[in-house]
């Protein structure tokens, strides 16, 4: 099946980091990349959700940060002028007081995305990239 090997780049190898404002830990962040050989308009992301250690992260706690901007997950489908370059990681910021405990964590990313040019005979190809990786929190 076309595109499947690109899922390997979805969750970046970078560690998970707690986010501090002065000395207050207001959340944690990790990085993801668009799983394809080329970039995508954010509006092609039809659904995006995250689990950490088996627990779903409520969308209301997540910010998707790219191109110097901060998007709600519910805003992505409207971002048809916002392009995600294939080598640029997006930062996923999860807002939670206290952040995340140091050590290993399982991150699961589930993205449904539309390939916008594949409507050769009508239908667009829609892919589901569902990847779980273990990453270290500092």
């Amino acid at each position, binding site marked *: 099946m076309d595109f*499947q090997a690109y899922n390997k780049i979805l969750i970046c190898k970078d560690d998970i980091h707690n986010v501090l404002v002065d000395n207050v830990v207001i959340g944690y962040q990790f990085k993801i990349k668009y799983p394809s050989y080329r*970039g995508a308009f954010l509006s*092609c992301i039809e659904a995006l959700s995250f689990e950490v250690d088996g627990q779903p992260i409520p969308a209301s706690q997540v910010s998707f940060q790219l191109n110097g901007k901060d998007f709600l997950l519910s805003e992505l489908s409207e971002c048809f002028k916002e392009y995600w370059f294939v080598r640029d990681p997006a930062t996923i910021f999860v807002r939670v007081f206290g952040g995340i405990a140091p050590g290993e964590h399982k991150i699961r990313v589930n993205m449904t995305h539309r390939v916008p040019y594949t409507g050769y005979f009508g239908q667009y190809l829609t892919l589901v990239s569902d990847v779980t990786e273990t990453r270290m929190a500092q």
Partner: protein
Amino acid sequence: MSDIKLGISLYSFSTEFIHEKLDFEGICKKAHDMGYQGVEIVAAQMVPEYPYPSDAWLAECKAILAKYELEPVCWSAYIDMGIRGDRDLTEDEIIQFTVNDLIYAKKAGFPMVRTQHAISPKIFRQMIPYCKQLGVKLTIEMHHPHHPEVPVWKEYFEIMKGEGKGWLGFVPDFSIFQTMPHKLYLDQAISFGCRPEKLAEIVELHRQKADYSVVANGDFNDIEKHTAEEMFGKFSAPAKMEQWKDMIDCAFYMHGKFYYLDNDDHDPCIPFEEIVAEVKRLGYKGYIASEYEGHHFDETIDSEEQLRHFVALMTKNIEK
């Protein structure tokens, strides 16, 4: 000596690019070191800030190509019809994207833009004055699952042979000649849950031109049925060599698509020997791009090794 030259689509190094083993300049250097001259860039892949690249980057792109003695051949664009979930692109949006790509190509020194079938005959025709003013040709890729018999292509050929002659053309991608699934596809199918002996049975049924219903109603699991459906859908209507003669005058460039080669001599999936013999016989002058695409299926394959097999195979046939 032949008039056919072997070039490279830098997209062949997708694995190295997206896994950040090589950047744009590193890929250009690699292409140069391998002996290539003519290059194609897939803008949506390698151009930072695309679809709104800076003039500074476009000038830098031109300078990098010059530094590695590479000839810009083709700037590859898409018609991303489904950018929005609520509707397809409008005519004005398709025109805006296409004119922008013609401009970016010009600024980066490319004499040709390759776009996609979804541009529509009406807009394709409207691009003629832009092509003439900018001195940039516009081509549409004929890619699998399209083939010369798809109705819209009759209209495209009429325009290319008529009012667009010399400026509007097409880029046949050799995927249109593929007759059977490649090794990486089959390996991946096994990794997804196809039983090897069942997969071999499906490949044999496909080779014998059996109907897909034989698999649908047979003793196969869901992933085997899904794989068979894809296989029967994809590789059952390859283009024919005799179709070249009616369209070759419109071919400004060709995509030497391949997925996996384990030797320098032959690919069981795409009939390169026949393709090269026929386009030579018909007097094709121009580039055939080496276009390795196995990266869709397996990121552990060495792109450079694949390209070396392809160059050896093609060179033998071009010089025959």
